[in-house]
Structures are given as C-alpha cells and as structure tokens.
C-alpha cells in the first residue's frame, strides 16, 4: 500500500460523504451483509451517470434492503411493503426527466408485491428496479420466500424448501423488461456496470443482485459468514451473457449463471404511451 492510500484510509472524509444521510448512520446492516457494498456501488453508478442528483429518486419497500433508500441523500422514499414499484411509477410519470430507481428485497418485490413487478415490466414503466436477492426474508427473521431455492433451509423450510423458486431474470424478460442482468454481490465491478447501464436505459430495466445475508440465510445453510457466501458465489458463478434466461434457474447444486441477458432498444415506455394516448384523445376531439 502506498503512502497516499494510507492517508486516505486515515482521513476523516469518506469518498461518499454528501451522498449518505449522516444522521441515519450507523446503518442497521449486520457484519458481513452485502447491502453496504451494494449501496456503495449504487451511489457510484448514480454519480457517474451525470444525472443531476436533484432528478434522482430512490424508492424502497420494506425489509433490510428496503432500508437503503433512507440512507441515501437523494429524494428517497421508504414506502410500504410490496408497493415501491407502483409508487415509483407515480413519481416517474409526473416528471419524465426524473430517474426513478427502486431497490428492494426479493420478498418485497416478488412475494407481497409480485403483481406490480409483472405489470410494470409488461407496460415498460420507465423505472430501474434492483432486487437484492438474499433468498429469504431477512428482516423478519429468515422465512422462506419466492426465491428460496429447492433444498434451502429457512425457518419455514426446516427440511429444505420443496418449492420451485422464481427465476427472476427469466420472469423479467418474459414480462417485457428492456434490460435484464444478474450478478453476485462479490462482483461489485459488474454490479456497478449493470446499475450504470440500467439507469441509462429508458423503459423497465431490471438488475438482480445475489446478496450475502449471513444472519438469516447463511447460518442455516452452512454459510454463516459473509465471506463464505461470497466464496460460495465465487465457486459457482459462470459468466454467460448469451444464456437463455429459461436455463438460469438457481438451485443448490447448479452453477449460478450471471450476465447481461436482455438489452433491447426502442420500445415505447409507459410514459410514451400515456403521452401518445393524450395526443390521440385530443386529436379525436379536434383540439
């Protein structure tokens, strides 16, 4: 390590000073949780996008992941459980210039709020949705949810889950998302790249980040430290941008296929269609 770097480490300033709400720190995340590094790269991606911070809104539902919005020094909303997507649509249509980013958990977005995700993707709502998939409901103590894989142990699957989980990129792709990527929290460089691309996109963009949750997922699945989960990701991850999303389901023994699976241009967004509808309606009435 060079002298310079040492100095930086000891400095009072943090590179993200100004982007976090200091009064809200310390955060609630457990040691070894990946939500901190995901927050970090989300801020970096927003910063580097060149979008005026005043035009950025970050919306979360409820859960550990849901806490992220509250730590960010943008317009940020910690909404009700399952509803960040319709809330974000409201924010986005009122100002088409505004960049609205939803970041929330697998339970919030795909269990209690599942309907909104498929409808928003179908209608190509102009929002970016990031799901931190930690394979369980972290905040309420580790219940199995819709992304819990077969054989996974949780409080409500004490013998290993028997149910088929959602394959999130495939769900997003089949419902019409224009951008779909998946990476693990270990690969922060690619996560950040995906965030940047998703933010730059107009229309419904989706990034799944496989997160490490040592506390309520790891402990029950022989991965009791954040590092072990990241090692588990490292061992299993295969990068394949060309993968057919139908083939990338996750289970206990499968490889974890990551990559950018969908990147479509020129599809009218929900906002485009709302504006078009106004034009048609006015034309019909001869206005």
């Amino acid at each position, binding site marked *: 390590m060079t002298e310079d770097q040492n100095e930086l480490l000891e400095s009072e300033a943090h590179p993200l000073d100004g982007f976090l709400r200091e009064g809200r720190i310390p955060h609630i995340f457990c040691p070894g949780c990946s939500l901190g590094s995901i927050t970090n790269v989300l801020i970096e991606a927003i910063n580097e996008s060149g979008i005026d911070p005043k035009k950025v809104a970050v919306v979360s539902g*409820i859960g550990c992941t849901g806490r992220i919005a509250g730590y960010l020094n943008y317009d940020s909303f*910690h909404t*009700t*459980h*399952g509803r960040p997507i319709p809330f974000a649509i409201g924010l986005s249509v009122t100002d088409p210039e505004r960049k609205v980013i939803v970041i929330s958990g697998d339970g919030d977005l795909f*269990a*209690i709020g*599942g309907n909104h995700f498929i409808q928003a993707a179908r209608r190509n709502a102009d929002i970016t949705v990031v799901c931190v998939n930690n394979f369980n*409901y972290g905040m*309420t*103590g580790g*219940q*199995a*949810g*819709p992304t819990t894989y077969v054989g996974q142990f949780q*409080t*409500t699957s*004490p013998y290993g889950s028997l149910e088929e989980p959602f394959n999130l990129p495939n769900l997003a792709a089949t419902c019409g998302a224009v951008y779909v990527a998946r990476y693990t929290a270990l690969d922060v460089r690619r996560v950040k790249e995906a965030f940047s691309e998703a933010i730059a996109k107009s229309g419904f963009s989706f990034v799944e980040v496989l997160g490490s949750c040592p506390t309520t997922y790891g402990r029950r699945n022989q991965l009791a430290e954040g590092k072990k989960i990241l090692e588990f990701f490292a061992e299993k991850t295969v990068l394949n941008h060309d993968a057919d999303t139908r083939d990338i389901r996750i289970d206990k023994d499968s490889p974890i296929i990551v990559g950018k699976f969908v990147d479509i241009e020129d599809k009218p967004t929900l906002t485009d269609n709302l504006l078009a509808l106004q034009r048609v309606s006015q034309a019909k009435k001869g206005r």
Partner: protein
Amino acid sequence: MVVKQETKSMTGNDAASYAALFAKPEVIAAYPITPQTTIVENLSRFVDEGKLEAEFIIVESEHSALAACMGAAWSGVRTFTATSSQGLLYMSENVFWTGYGRLPIIMPVVNRCLAPGWNIWPDFQDSMAFRDAGWIQMYTKNNQEVFDTTLQAFKISESKDIALPSMPCLDGFVISHTTGQVDLPDPEDAFEFIGPYDDPIIELDVENPWAYGSMTGPDQYSKNRRDLMVAMERAKKKIVDVHKEFEERFGRSYGNGLVEPYGDDEADLTLVTLGTIGDEAHEAIDRLKVEGHSVNALRVRTFRPFPVEDIVEFAKKNHKLVVIDRAASFGHEGPLRIEVEAVLKRHNVDTSVSGKIMGLGGEDVPYSAIIDLAKKELKE
C-alpha cells in the same frame, strides 16, 4: 370445580399460540410481521412436532393469509391466523369480508402503530381502524389474559347464534415479547371447554350446494347488516356467559368479561382504559390511595360489541371519568373517549368525561405518568 393447571413462564405471543394449539384449528395461514411472527412460528413448530394436526399454509402476503382462512372457514373447519399493524391494514378488504360474511375466524392482533414513521412499537391505531368491520374485539392486559381470551374467543365466535370473527388484541412487545406467568390447563381440559367445531356455521355440502357472496340487492343487503348488528348485541351476553363458564372451570375472571373494574365502587376519579395501560393503572391507583386520593378504574376489555350498559352503570356511581386512549381519531378525540362520552350522553348520565391520548408509537406509559394525569384531573 376448577381444573388443575400448571404455572409456566412465557411471552404473550407464546400464550396466544398455546391457546390456538389447545383449540386444535385445522387450518392456519400466515405471513410474518413483527411483533406477531412468533405466534405463527410456534404453531408451525407444533405442527411439525406432531402436536397439532393442522394444515399450515405459508402465503405471500397477509391479504392471502386471511383469504386462505376464509376459504377454509367456509369449508366448515376451525381456522386461525394472526397479524399486526401494516399486515392488518393490508388484509383490510378481507377483514371486512370476514366480518360481514360472518366467518368465525380467530385472529390475534399484536398491536403495533402504523407507518409512515416506521416504528414497531405498540399503540391501538391498527385494530381501532377495524372497529366497524364486524369483528369481536377484546383487549388484554397481560400474558395470562391473552391465553384466556384467545381460548374464549373460539367458543364465542363459533356459536351458531353469534357467527362472528374475533380479534383478541395484545400490546406489541409489552405483552407479545415480555415473559410473564401463565397458568396453563391441560390441553384436554382446554379443548373440552370450547369443544370440537363439529356443527359448523357454514359447511360445503354437495347435496345442498350454495352460492356464496352473490350480488345482493338493497333489501337483502340491509337485512344482512341488521342481522350483524343484532348478532353483536347477542355476543355481549355470550361473552359474559362464556367468561363465567371459563371462571368456573379455570378459576380466573376479568370483571364480567366485558369490563373489569378496579378499586372502590365509588371514587373521586375513574380511569377508563384499554389493554396494558389498564394493568399499569392498578399500580397508579394503589399509590394514589396511599397518598389519600380516591381513584378507581374501569378497563374496557371488550370494545366490540361495546359494553354500553356496564359503562353507564359504572359512570352513574362515579363523579369524573378520564379516558386514556392509545389511538387517535384525527379530527376528533381518542376513539374510546368519543364512545364513552356518547354513551353517557345518550343515557343522560351527567358524570363528566375528559380524556388523554397516551402511548402512541410505543411512548412509555408508566404508572408515574398515570399518577400525574390523575392528580391533574383531581385538581381541575
């Protein structure tokens, strides 16, 4: 004769789950929310351990939890769920359906305040929002009462002449997560008290098929709602009867089941309360007595149906009531105060009524705060 019971120490949520275990519901559906989660976690463990033969359905939201219970209740089986706060709000469409549909589902509500301002601590804003949903609502003061009330709820709700769902309410954390003493009867004695649900209110019957929930014109609709009003009136008597029977068998009582007085029959000031503040008021009253003040209390145990007659009787013998609410009807006063005042007015009782809203969002309400309030009211 009072049956044998064993003294245990357990949380309020444990007490609710033991009552459910002993009642042997056949279907339980649930979704986690703090501070309710441990009730259904206990039950899932009981099912897993073979102590309880029930279908335990894990669902993706509270809306589905109650919907699944509704389906089960309509098929004629004993049904249980539990929730709290935002979870109860998210269920709301089905909460009204259950009440207006007369389905005898038992659903403890672990009281927690409402967002925004995310906060997991207790107040009664959540259950108070469902005052008009056609559910029996009983507020408990400690862990023992949670067990007793939940058990009684099955017997009350499932009576054919009542056919109403029940919402036993317990203060989040103060009861739900605090360990206290609970005398548990043998499971057989508890079950015998409520009996099997073998003559259900509604039951699927292929020989005699019914269509449920169809379009209903104004005449029939208003008749249905009037039936519900009358059933609530009948429930008042039923609650007293079941409570009495419970006392004979288990040796515990809470006033007459509708209201629980504390202290002298007549006093200079009466504290009217709900939930754990009612328990805390005992301490305040005892200390005030030592200082020479004459204060008594009336804890409203059953909020729906509202114990009009008991409140009127108690108020007649007393001089000044101060109602402590743990919820607000914004634009008016605390809901309990509003109702107490209205009832006294209607029955021409001129005992004065004032009120104070305390304990919102988990704000602590120690006996010292109640003493301060009482002294202020005594002066005025």
